[in-house]
């Protein structure tokens, strides 16, 4: 069984390449998807929230209270678009969605400042969006520190320093991760339909009657897409550098090594899907079933450390989780692959297990 024939693998991969070249939709997806997603996510996703619409009810109207409002506005987190008289009016504006944040400064503001056990002023926040909630909360601590500074001695408990992305530009964080997301999406889709399509078009009956072995078929089908995956990685890297000035702190060869094994892992996952799906439509559904948890749990959208332990274990199974660590480590921190071998092994094992599963699942039979 071990006499693998390169001629047969070559036969499959040539055929696959010829078909792919003629499939305009797929060829378009190879280039179009990375470009569109990169532009879309790179420019649009911004977790650094600024310019929240706000209203103020300054019932104290003293020099200190006016200073507080000026400080809040200077932070750029808030855009104060109006002032009202009561907390009730602020609530109404929040309910109507006209503002995200309201500042209520009571009549006895200055007296409260001196009694340290009572809050001096109130922030009313639209908590329906956790990102906004977080941003506004950070605002509280900043303004209160400033206020405290003007009344009592300034003692800062923490000095916040931001490594790796000093300007806190979201694109720097998101675009490297996008490599993983785009590759996951396109690679799995490509191979998920690979075998189902042969079945749907009636080619499978001929194919399984030839001497080609299952392993040769799988490898032959995967090789062209590995090349395509590497092209996509290159494309996104170029966009990252040119459009978003993402600094490449690590070695380029490390990026490609990590990408190579990650691409292979995803292609194998697609093959597994292909052996389960009965139609191309089903294959796409299954792909999304795998893709969504990948995006949500891998740490691409939400911080990995914030998830409960069970979700973290689940996320460790997903190739994207490991790749995000690798790619962010290499690109942003300048780490080398030797420091992150665990994630490389994890991807390697995933690729091997899924290849085995695909081969075991695929029978050269019709039933």
């Amino acid at each position, binding site marked *: 069984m071990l006499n693998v*024939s390169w*001629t*047969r693998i*070559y*036969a*499959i991969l*040539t*055929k696959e390449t*010829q*078909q792919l070249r*003629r*499939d305009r939709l797929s060829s378009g997806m190879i280039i179009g998807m990375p470009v569109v997603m990169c532009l879309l996510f790179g420019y649009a996703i911004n977790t650094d929230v600024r310019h929240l619409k706000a209203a103020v009810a300054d019932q104290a109207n003293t020099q200190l209270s006016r200073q507080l409002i000026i400080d809040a506005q200077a932070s750029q987190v808030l855009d104060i678009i109006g002032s009202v008289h009561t907390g009730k009016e602020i609530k109404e504006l929040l309910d109507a969605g006209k503002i995200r944040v309201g500042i209520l400064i009571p009549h006895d503001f200055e007296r409260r400042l001196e009694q340290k056990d009572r809050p001096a002023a109130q922030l009313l926040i639209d908590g329906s969006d956790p990102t906004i909630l977080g941003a506004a909360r950070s605002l509280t601590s900043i303004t209160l520190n400033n206020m405290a500074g003007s009344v009592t001695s300034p003692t800062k408990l923490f000095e916040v320093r931001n490594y790796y992305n000093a300007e806190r530009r979201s694109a720097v964080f998101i675009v490297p991760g996008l490599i993983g997301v785009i590759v996951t999406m396109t690679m799995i889709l490509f191979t998920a339909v690979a075998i189902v399509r042969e079945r749907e*078009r*009636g*080619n*499978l*009956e*001929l194919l*399984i*009657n*030839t*001497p*080609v*072995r299952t392993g040769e078929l799988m490898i032959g089908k995967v090789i062209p897409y590995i090349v395509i995956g590497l092209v996509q990685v290159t494309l996104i890297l170029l966009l990252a550098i040119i459009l978003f000035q993402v600094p490449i702190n690590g070695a380029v060869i490390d990026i490609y090594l990590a990408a190579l094994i990650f691409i292979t892992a995803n292609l194998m996952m697609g093959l597994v899907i292909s052996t389960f799906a009965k139609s191309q439509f089903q294959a796409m559904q299954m792909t999304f079933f795998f893709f969504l948890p990948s995006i949500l749990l891998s740490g691409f959208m939400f911080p990995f450390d914030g998830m409960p332990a069970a979700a973290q274990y689940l996320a460790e199974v997903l190739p994207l989780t490991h790749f995000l660590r690798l790619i962010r480590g290499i690109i942003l921190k300048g780490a080398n692959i030797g420091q992150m071998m665990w994630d490389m092994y994890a991807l390697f094992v995933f690729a091997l297990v899924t290849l085995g599963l695909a081969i075991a699942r695929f029978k*050269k*039979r*019709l*039933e």
Partner: protein
Amino acid sequence: MNAELAIESHDLTRRFGKLTAVDHLAMRVPRNMIYGFLGPNGSGKSTTIRMLCGLLTPSEGTVNVLGHKVPGDAELLKQKIGYMTQRFSLYDDLTVMENLQFIARVYSLPKAKQLRRIEKALQTYFLSDRTRQFAGTLSGGQKQRLALACATLHKPELLFLDEPTSAVDPQSRRDFWESLFRLVHKGTTILVSTHYMDEAERCHRLAILDHGRMVADGSPQQLMDTITTTVVEIASASPQDAHDALQEKEGIASVTQLGQRLRVLVEKSIDDPIAHVKTFLKHANVDAQAEITRASLEDVFVASTHKQVSDAER
């Protein structure tokens, strides 16, 4: 197993749920001939061929193809057999040339041989001027020639053809059969399934399948000579009335209208078929002439499959 046999099966059975598609088939296909599978749709022709190739696992029974046990040793067999599927199964989005190259590589033909064989196949199957055309845009006859060219490119000892001519015109069919005889002349064994009588008649040997069972096996001539019914031909001015007068009567196996004439199959147990038929006609006041005639292959087919139906009804 007898070395003279290309295929031998015992009790070959395949069930799909409650349906028995192939029912205890005992086949013996000698080498170097065209062996036909004749049967109506759903008689188990395709299922049998798929089991012989190792694509389907038999529910029961044993199969030996070219000395290999199937499905156990099916992979060893692949290099020695060719298979032309009922539905065109080459790649529509590859050109004629690319399809042939793909097949040549998948069968691991040496590089030098690949070119020569492909060149030869293009000539043999009149595809030389179509090399750059996409297979999906070929006509029915061209597709079929390409399929045969691909199925024979690696020079298989045994060729399975599953209803190969269902989508082509009569002229293409004639050409196609000429190619088959040329292959047999060079030593290939061919198993072909069909539901066309004229094709069945060209086979060296024929098995008639019905409801998964083999109801007749022999050369077309043998089958016609040993038919289990007497064929009575009736000429009448009102064939429709004659038809109604005889349909489903005692001792009448089947009535088929051919223009102004009727072909009536009368059970062998009836001593005087002509008198038997005339009694029914007289009873229905139909004026007609009747004479005994030579059985055709279609008569054999109708007689054997009819018997099967009436067996099942009882």
